[in-house]
């Protein structure tokens, strides 16, 4: 990581980085280095301010990227002055998004019981609506497939398992699904 990128990171810490430099930083091909540096500085700052980041190893680069992309058209139209103002704003939406998402997770779940049932109702209505075609789904027996058909189907199974494996936070279950899809044996 060169000095210019380090400077951008430092500017981001102070909420003063401009969009172009942030984009350059996000496209840097050693993202792990960038993240590590960011994390170190955050840690130092947190230590100084004694604040606590709820999920300290969370990677916000995707969130930042999304906010940048979402704002793109607006930025094109507005001038450099607006850019300055919006760069100040985008930083917080990204952080806010992450914080929101974390809050919306399990922590808040317990209190939702009644409201969640409320939102489920239209879904149930949709189910009854779809009840007519809910006549049994036609089942294709795997044994009835010929070699080529089975090959095609197992390719889909494998691709799905690959996506749904370890990165999805499933650990060993993910690997197991993958091996099961790969090994065949049906």
């Amino acid at each position, binding site marked *: 990581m060169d000095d210019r990128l380090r400077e951008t990171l430092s500017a981001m810490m102070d909420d003063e980085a401009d969009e172009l430099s942030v984009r350059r930083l996000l*496209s*840097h*091909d050693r*993202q792990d280095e960038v993240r590590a540096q960011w994390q170190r500085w955050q840690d130092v700052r947190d230590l100084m301010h004694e604040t606590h980041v709820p*999920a300290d190893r969370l*990677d916000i680069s*995707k969130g930042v*990227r999304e906010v940048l992309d979402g704002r793109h058209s607006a930025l094109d139209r507005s001038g450099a002055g607006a850019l300055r103002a919006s760069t100040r704003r985008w930083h917080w939406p990204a952080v806010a998004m992450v914080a929101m998402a*974390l809050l*919306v*997770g*399990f922590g*808040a*779940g*317990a209190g*939702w*019981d009644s409201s*969640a*049932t409320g*939102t*489920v109702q239209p*879904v*149930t209505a949709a*189910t009854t609506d*779809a009840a007519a075609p*809910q006549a049994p*789904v*036609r089942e*294709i027996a*795997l044994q*009835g497939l010929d070699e080529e*058909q089975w090959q*095609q*189907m197992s390719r*889909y*199974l*494998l*691709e*799905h398992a*690959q*996506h*749904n*494996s*370890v*990165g*999805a*936070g*499933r*650990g*060993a*279950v993910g*690997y*197991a699904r*993958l*091996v*099961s899809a*790969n*090994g065949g*044996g*049906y």
Partner: protein
Amino acid sequence: MQTPTAHRHPWSTALLIVLMAFAVPVLSDEQEASDWLKRLGPALNMTSYQGVFVYARGDSVHSMQIAHRYHNGVVEERLVLQDGGNGEIVRKGMNVVCVLPERGRVKLDQVIPSGPFAEALTSQLVPVSRWYRAEMKGEDRVAGYDVVSVALSARDAYRYSHRLWLEKTTGLLVKSQVRNADGEVLEHFQFTSLRIGNDIPDSEFEIRTEGREIATTLDAGKPEASRIGQMDGWHLGWRPDGFMPAAAPRSGKGQAVAFSDGLAAFSVFVEPAGQVDMPTGASLIGATTVYMHQVNKGGSGFLVTVVGELPPHTARQVAESVRIENAVAARSESP
């Protein structure tokens, strides 16, 4: 403020007490279950353990030996296939080496999608409790360890229910089941032998199988993230509430997108219909449904396939909601 109503109607106070007596345990039970689930994600990575687990779905059963440790901030893992062909997967942080069995076709760069948020997305950011009712199911013992059992019952008919067993001190997932609405177990994962502890020798993380070796470094800066939920020339008209776009598998031809509600996931593939004539309908392999059907647009046929841990009628509904808008774009080969 005074509460004169309570004095005038003593029964209402009594009713309130009765209601609270019912409400409080239910709430704390759900809270306890979510507290356990919050530990699940970190425990999968940060716990060091070794053992053997079995995985059964449909009529196939596999067993694998696993060693996993969190060492100097890096995840190290070694998995050895216990049946079928020889094979093993060794992972050290982002470096993966795979010794494949004869028929192996595992694409390493997709085994561990390492894009930003890959882990956080599914384990933390999706509000699982909106789509599943979490409930404590008591204590048990699995592979010699004391565990707590958490039931996650689907709140609607569009998904399956799950049951998880977590080791009491670490929160490690040691057993899991996927069940349908009738309570029938469709998929089963379970450790049969397990040892949790940090003292795993380095030798446990070395490759020992002779064979075709493939080494890959998982690159965090892949453009995959930008492809999340992206569909060219077609769109999904409907999907069950709560399923969010997830890291997309890359299909050989045509496009694929993936969705997850935090527990279950499904992938949708849209490809030009090839020479192989695929039947319309659902094939079931344990908890996994493969639903295929063909659509025609602009004189050309497309094969729509939904694969996921979904009930067959949900998979069909998703597959039938696919609309091809631009036959040319949908035919384009993905990079």
